[in-house]
């Protein structure tokens, strides 16, 4: 029973957590990819930027002596999401829009986003340094230990983890209704499917672009904040977080928000289960196994964790480039 609880703690919970973070990041990425038609390399640093905005707001409130029943970082995440969305629109105005209007090839936009990611990295680390920071400025995070009958170990869940899962569910449902019911959401899907046809039918592409950046930027901020609440805020994530999110986007099919969610969880679970030490779960059956149980039996050593999303990406690109949800191959 203990081993099962260990599996739940280390395998399922962390898979869910990292999966929701990837999903939140991948939704924005897939919308940008589908509507603006380029791979947005600055998304990882947009997440870090959002987390920093949250941290600054939370620290400011904590300095004023505000205390709330929920963690401060979670509460100020909502204004931070708005700020990040505005920043994302600003980045688009300054760096991507002029290129789009000049009729640049999509790959030039990709390159511009690489430039933007470097600028964001530079600014963030210039002002904040490279050390990790704790998002819980006012009090340490609460940890719930739920006793399980028949086991001496407890099921461990932290407060930010619960908040993250709730937030993901709410965000996904809200996004679903926005995309299927709201006028603007339908327009976004139309532009994603066929930009020329959408423009002819009178859809204001400008608004669609704004909506894309608002959703992408705010979800990136949420994902970054949640990730740093779950562990710590690391300013030097960028490319390491970018690769799994790209993998999730492509697995789910480009331009498919539901695919991105599925892809995010798929990549998240693959990653955690690949580095999970399976010998602990197999220990109760030690006597019935035909081989000696090694002390460490993970599929992938932890230091090669990054290989998992990459391999998923490669396999999808070889065998099913449209992704599992039949997205487009641009």
């Amino acid at each position, binding site marked *: 029973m203990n081993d099962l609880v260990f599996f739940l703690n280390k395998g399922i919970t962390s898979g869910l957590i990292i999966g929701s973070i990837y999903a939140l990041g991948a939704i924005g990425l897939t919308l940008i*990819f589908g509507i603006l038609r*380029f*791979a947005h*390399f600055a998304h990882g640093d947009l997440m870090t930027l959002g987390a920093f905005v949250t941290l600054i707001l939370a620290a400011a409130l904590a300095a004023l002596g505000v205390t709330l029943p929920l963690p401060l970082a979670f509460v100020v995440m909502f204004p931070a999401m708005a700020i990040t969305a505005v920043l994302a629109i600003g980045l688009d105005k300054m*760096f991507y829009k*002029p*290129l789009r209007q*000049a009729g*640049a*090839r*999509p*790959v*030039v936009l*990709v*390159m*511009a986003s*690489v*430039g*933007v*990611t*470097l*600028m*964001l*990295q*530079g*600014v963030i*680390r*210039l002002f904040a*340094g*490279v*050390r990790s920071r704790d998002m819980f400025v006012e009090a340490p995070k609460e940890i719930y230990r739920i006793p399980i009958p028949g086991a001496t170990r407890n099921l461990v869940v932290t407060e930010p983890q619960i908040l993250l899962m709730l937030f993901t569910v709410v965000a996904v449902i809200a996004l679903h209704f926005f995309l299927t019911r709201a006028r603007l959401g339908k327009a976004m899907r139309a532009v994603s499917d066929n930009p020329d046809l959408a423009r002819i039918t009178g859809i204001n592409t400008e608004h669609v672009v704004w909506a894309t950046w608002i959703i992408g930027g705010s979800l990136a901020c949420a994902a970054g904040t949640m990730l740093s609440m779950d562990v710590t805020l690391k300013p030097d994530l960028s*490319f*390491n977080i*970018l*690769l799994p999110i*790209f993998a999730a986007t*492509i697995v789910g099919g480009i331009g498919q928000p539901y695919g991105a969610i599925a892809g995010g969880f798929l990549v998240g679970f693959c990653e955690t289960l690949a580095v999970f030490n399976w010998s602990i779960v197999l220990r109760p059956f030690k006597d019935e196994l035909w081989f000696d149980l090694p002390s460490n039996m993970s*599929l*992938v*050593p932890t*230091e*090669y964790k*990054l*290989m998992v*999303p*990459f391999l998923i*990406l*490669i*396999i999808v*690109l*070889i*065998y099913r*480039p449209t992704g599992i949800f039949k997205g487009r*191959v*641009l």
Partner: protein
Amino acid sequence: MSSQTQNPIMRDIALFAALGVLVLVIFVSQGAVYSVRMLVEAGCYGIIALGLTIQWGYAGLFNVGIMGFIAAGAASSMLMTFPRNPDFWNSGGPELAGLFIVKLIACALALWLANNSNRWGVGPRLRALLITIAIAVSYLVLSFHMTVMSEEIEKASGWMGGLGLPVFFGWIIAGVIAGIIAWFVGKICLGLRSDYLAIATLGIAQIIKHFLKNADWLTNGTLTVSPMPWPVPSPADGEFLFARAAYLSVVAVALLITYLLLQRAYHSPWGRMMRAIRDNEEAAGAMGKNVNRRRLEIFILGCVLMGIGGAMLIHFTSIYDPSGFLDLNHTFLIWVMVILGGSGNNRGAIFGAIFVYIVWVMSEPLAVMLFDAIATYGNQWLGWEAPSDFLSRALQMRVFVIGLTITLVLRLAPQGLLPERQARH
């Protein structure tokens, strides 16, 4: 665009003359030993930049994994040329390594058979199953063997050591290994849109670096390997200036040969076809050109040059340190060189490489000085206490500047300083 002057030849001469003056100023102000070192490194970057300019400028391929190809080239060249490690050759290590290669070939063969099983009348379902089994089994076999092998080798001899072959041979192998990796990446991604290539190259670069950092048995991991052998008498035997000048001449000859060959390729029917594909893929395809195959060719060729250039660069620094491969220095700096110099123009790439590298090297003390001044005056005038890692943040300033340069050049001068000159036939 006003950057296209009436006489492009004059522009070339003027820019290269200005570059020559800049180099001369550095020779006078910084001393010959330092300047020659800088020129050698700039020359190696020049070869890498030529590799990139044919990918981006000739064929429009977006490669953000240059660091990975440099690292792979440097590591394989190191393995070829570093003196042998007798402990390894006397232990059971060679046997294990040989067995690993045999297993690797067997797994590759199994995967190839599974992948091509549809030729022998196997249905798509069964083929998918066969492929899955082949991937799973080969992964388990290889990773288990690798765990055992790395433990054995690390216990017996620390690491494998090199083969002690001549340096020029090592450089060729560096190109071959980089080319093989490029073949895999290109085969998978080049049929799709260029964004996929960017994502995949970014990923492979991170993975190669991670692997080299953790593979203690193969490359000594983060413990670094030094001294790397030189193709010319190394400074230990003689004085610095002479040795470096000899190395410089080797690099210069390599750069010149590469340039001449690429120049010839650019004006050949092959180069014309490449530009046709870059400028209008559909039209080129309709003319019966095999677009993906040509792209694969040029991608591999570019990566071979990156591998060779990377090996030359790391041999010169004489210490192989996998943590020293940085995205900034070994990927994005080269991008700045190519787009600033002028993509699709080989002279532009060389000019960009030398010019940007000089600015890059010179900017380091400048940035530190600037930050030092800010810290001092901030403290004196405003009573502001600089954070303890303030000086290390000077590096981050350069990250920002590189990013800004990329975006500004793309927007304001997409053709670069030396624009591509369309040949008229």
